[in-house]
């Protein structure tokens, strides 16, 4: 990707303070970060360094206390609750450490959910959800509920749910945190594949260097600031 492309995500002096008064805690102390469209980014750093806080802000789930967050050139920090919800609906997909699937709900219905909120007609929903399940290799498991699926399978359903809307950015906070290394590698390979073939920008928090190695770019956090940015080991072509 050329340097002239505007970044899909741009953070400028982003701060986040939790709480008020004497118990207030500054989790982010002025984060500057640009992420290019189509990049595969791993976010690393010690516990409490502000990785999840940043991801929540990038995911429009939370607002920064100060600074600017531009998503596709839009000042997200100026949007209200519902406008952010619509941004999430349209451009973002989430994968969580704890899978966060709806219990007692079939894989298909879970994957369908974002389309339902988008107001797609039934048939179209079904087809898109089946296609997404097929991509994560769980087509034959469509009618199983989370309770009937293994952790790895649940995470794949969660990924299917995240990508079913064809989002621009996929945000994953420790997606392999609850999985063994074999399942983790499967997930990583899938995310790599997705990034390569669909051009989805992938942002992933991880503690494991092995997983981070799948990324093109690795962002290191420390004490609420970006410490350094390096190129991933398996990134093939070097990143600036």
């Amino acid at each position: 990707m050329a340097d002239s492309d505007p970044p899909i995500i741009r953070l400028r002096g982003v701060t986040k303070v939790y709480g008020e008064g004497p118990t207030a805690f500054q989790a982010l102390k002025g984060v500057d970060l640009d992420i290019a469209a189509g990049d595969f980014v791993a976010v690393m750093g010690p516990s409490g360094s502000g990785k999840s806080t940043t991801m929540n802000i990038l995911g429009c789930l939370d607002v920064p206390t100060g600074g600017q967050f531009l998503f596709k050139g839009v000042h997200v920090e100026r949007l209200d609750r519902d406008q952010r919800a619509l941004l999430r609906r349209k451009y973002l997909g989430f994968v969580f450490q704890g899978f966060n699937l709806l219990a007692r709900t079939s894989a298909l219905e879970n994957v369908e959910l974002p389309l339902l909120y988008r107001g797609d007609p039934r048939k179209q929903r079904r087809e898109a959800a089946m296609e997404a399940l097929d991509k994560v290799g769980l087509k034959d498991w469509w009618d199983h509920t989370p309770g009937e699926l293994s952790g790895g399978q649940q995470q794949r359903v969660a990924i299917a749910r995240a990508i079913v809307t064809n989002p621009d950015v996929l945000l994953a906070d420790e997606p392999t945190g609850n999985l063994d290394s074999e399942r983790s590698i499967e997930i990583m390979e899938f995310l790599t594949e997705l990034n390569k073939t669909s051009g989805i920008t992938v942002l992933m928090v991880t503690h494991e260097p092995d997983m981070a190695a799948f990324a093109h770019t690795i962002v290191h956090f420390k004490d609420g600031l970006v410490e350094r940015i390096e190129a991933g080991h398996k990134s093939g072509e070097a990143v600036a």
Partner: protein
Amino acid sequence: MFGTTFMLAIRSIFRHKLRSFLTTLGIIIGVAAVVAMVTLGKATTKAAQAQVASLGTNVLQIRPGQGFGRGGGGPRPPDFKEADVEAIARQVAGVKAVAPQAQSTATVIYQGANWSTTINGTTNAFFQVQPWPLVSGRTFSRNEEQAGNAVCIIGNTIRTNLFRGGEAVGDRIRVNGVSCDVIGVLSTRGQGGFGDQDDVIIMPIKQVQRRFTGNRDIRLMMVGVDPAYDSAQVQESIKQVLRERRRITGGKEDDFNIFDTAQISQTLTGITTLLTQIVTAVAAISLVVGGIGIMNIMLVSVTERTREIGIRLAIGAVASEVLLQFLMEAVVLSCLGGLVGLVVAQLVVIGLAPLMQVEFLFEPQINVIAFLVSALIGVVFGYFPAQRAAGLNPIDALRHE
């Protein structure tokens, strides 16, 4: 958005069947109670009115004496005579017909079967005063009436017991040894507050007076009042006529009483209506309790489903969609509860109506009202929990547990 949230609500309800059932139980019971009570109340009122109507509407009953429970001692006032009947019929405006009555009891025999019953002597005016159609045969001819022939019209109980339900007209029965032609059979009136009304034989009053009572006294006059006239005024005129005929002057009290069936009708209706209202009020309270039950469970459900709400918000649901979903769940639940309650109410009415000796009836109005109220309860008691769900912060909700 409406269709989507409706579907989400339906899914959520059927995914948690037990929870849904328990949530709606209060509504089911409340609606069933209200509808059953109101329906049974209406049925009872109707039955009571029908019973009173069997006395005839706009009918005055005139008896000697000062009325029920009054005027204990002293000589018994005299009964009426035929001349009194004629005087009232002729002199009082608004009187349709006056039926004299003389009663006796007798044993009736037909082909070896016998039956003890009431003999009611009257004239054809009896059938003008109150509606009591015949199922077969005819009423008295002018000749039979004037001569006091031995003819009779029998009640259905007599036909059942002596004729085993068969055709009776044209046959001859013996009444206290007097042989008597059956010329008609009365339609069934059924069990009333006055005993079995069909256990009766009607004969020309002259025959009854000659053969059974042995005098020309008339114990009771039934007066049919033209509905176009004011009943109170007609009563007053009758009173004046009778006072004059019985030579009651000045401040002396009447030695007869006039009883208006319309009054009992009103009293009875008043009582049953009041009872229905009280029971309905109690039932309505249970509906409100049911609504609070829904709110309770919905609130618990919001807490229990915090994570689910977080997920929905994270994947792009806006607050109003979450609000609508929860509100919809509450409304759909209470409407379902309402519908089930309506069905239960009909079953209760079907089950209880025979025991209460009333007819089954379907009251569309109360059913519609009860259903609308249950929907309203869903909206009112569902709103607070729904608002709470919609107000959740997505991150906090996701982190819940």
